[in-house]
């Protein structure tokens, strides 16, 4: 067989790579980095050249409280998506053929309707005279309707539903590439089903888990419609506050400052997640090493 000759020198290979990257890089700089820098500038220039917007965030306890609530909700939603999403992704991985397609289709189903429509649909499902309460009453599981919406459970249900696909898909992508024989060989060496799973599949799926958690966590920090409609007075997220400042009070300098604080905290978490993922990958063997 004729051996493939080197098609080009190393120098033109680098040039091609750069030409491929530059347009997209320009796009990202133009529509993301530049506006973020403008946001930074606005937060210290509007209404005058001071740091008074940031001083107000630190001085007024309500803003730190709301930031804390935002992160609390994001964390709980992430945990819920892991608990619900992992078994589902595992199940998809184990099925074949048309059933697999159906399950994947169901995962993507939430994306087919707008967020607002889905949120209102949840109000209909969860309200006192809604389907869920009516069903539980008919089955005599409860004797009086329970409050499932306009409180924290309502927000959690709504947000978990919206964000589940973002957990299932990366997880599925990682689980898909894990050789099923590894688990089988672990049990052939004497491990029980659970131990076989925990010592082989679980650590290897860590990258997918970290990726999914990162996406879900960071997306839930920005959620605003769902907590506003499904939540009660105590479910105030920072994005709701920013929206009021932008849309009612027209205080864009302060809104920019709140956004900058949110960006900085989010960046901090992103860095922590990446570091965490790096540490995990150093301690456990990767898929590449096992092939």
């Amino acid at each position, binding site marked *: 067989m004729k051996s493939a000759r080197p098609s080009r020198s190393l120098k033109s290979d680098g040039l091609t790579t750069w030409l491929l990257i530059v*347009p997209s890089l320009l796009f990202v700089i133009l529509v993301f980095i530049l506006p973020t820098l403008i946001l930074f500038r606005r937060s210290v220039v509007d209404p005058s050249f001071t740091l008074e917007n940031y001083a107000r965030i630190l001085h007024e306890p*309500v803003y730190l409280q*709301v930031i804390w609530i935002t992160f609390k909700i994001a964390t709980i939603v992430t945990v819920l998506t892991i608990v619900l999403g992992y078994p589902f992704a595992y199940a998809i991985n184990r099925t074949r053929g048309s059933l697999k397609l159906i399950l994947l289709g169901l995962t993507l189903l939430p994306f087919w309707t707008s967020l607002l429509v889905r949120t209102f649909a949840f109000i209909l499902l969860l309200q006192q005279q809604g389907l869920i309460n009516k069903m539980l009453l008919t089955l005599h599981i409860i004797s009086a309707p329970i409050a499932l919406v306009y409180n924290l459970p309502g927000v959690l249900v709504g947000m978990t539903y919206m964000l589940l696909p973002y957990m299932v898909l990366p997880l599925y992508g990682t689980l898909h590439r894990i050789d099923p024989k590894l688990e089988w060989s672990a049990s052939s060496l004497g491990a029980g089903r659970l131990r076989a799973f925990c010592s082989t599949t679980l650590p290897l799926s860590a990258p997918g888990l970290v990726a999914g958690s990162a996406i879900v966590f960071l997306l839930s920090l920005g959620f605003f419609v769902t907590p506003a409609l499904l939540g009660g007075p105590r479910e105030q997220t920072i994005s709701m506050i920013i929206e009021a400042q932008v849309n009612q009070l027209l205080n864009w300098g302060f809104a920019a400052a709140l956004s900058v604080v949110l960006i900085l905290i989010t960046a901090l978490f992103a860095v922590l997640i990446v570091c965490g993922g790096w540490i995990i990958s150093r301690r456990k063997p990767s898929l590449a090493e096992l092939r």
Partner: protein
Amino acid sequence: MKNRSRVLVLFALIPLLLFTRCSGSGPKQRELVVVSYGGSYQDAQRKAYFEAFAKKYNVNVREETWGGDFGKLKAMVESGNVTWDVVDVEAYMVLRGAQQNLYEKIDYTKVPKDELLPEAINDYGVVAVFWSTVQAFNSQHFSPDKPHPVGWADFWNTQKFPEPRALRKDPVGNLEFALLADGVPKDRLYPLDLDRAFASLDKIKSHVKVWWTAGEQPVQLLSTSEVLISSGWNGRIYSGAKEGKPVALDWEGGLVSSDWWVIPRGSKNKDVAQDFLAFASSAEAQSELPKYIAYGPPNKNAIARIPPEIAKDLPTAPQNLAKQVIINNEWWEKNQAAVLDRWNKWLLK
């Protein structure tokens, strides 16, 4: 292979092509883009104003809806790319927007200034309608034997009326209602005593089941019996009742507010916009609107023309006006930012 890398480079340049714009030719007929809040309100405005204006002045009237995202209006004016010509805004937006220089001045040589109520005129806006936030209730649950709450002291009385209730998730209105419930007379509400208002709100907080945010929510909540008493906008309640839903309202303690027409600064069809405002403020046009929705017009001649069977459902009818309070927009414009902070803190308690 060289060909392959060339093709790859071409693919990489495709994103740049997305930045080129195609220009089209403008329409020949005069255009007007008018923006309002959608729903039954905009349907009524269409029947009373937009269609008649389009026909009479031979203008292509395009409608858009918005939810009051004031930020979008500001962004549009600041960027210089104004696509809206006439916008229906809430009262506080007129004052705040005028401060930030977002509007064109109203041409009062065209708009019939003398025919309008004095409260309906501003350099930068003219009142579109007067509407009220009132107390609404489920009309099947309450009956002559089981009378509904009248006034805000009743709403606050959770012993006499243990029913689940709803209020708007906004301090505007709720502070006034809290003070009225606490016994402050209607003519001595402003400036609002914030400490007293929030203390009064503390008494009702745990009994409010839903804090509504969308205008249609009170009708929906009352129809499904999720709550049985709620605050709400009179036009929506009236329309809901007309559609057969079990909702009704009481005028006692209602808060009269207004919606205004403004012209964003830099609008491309300024002259047509001024013509529209003149038309929409005329007596003939304004006497049409209450036929479709229960909001009060500011034109004095129009008010005189409305038949009594329609007039009785309008917030501006004298017998209804006597039971209500007119909101002080200037006070809210000055204090809204500080009140909102305190309100958010109070919600989280």
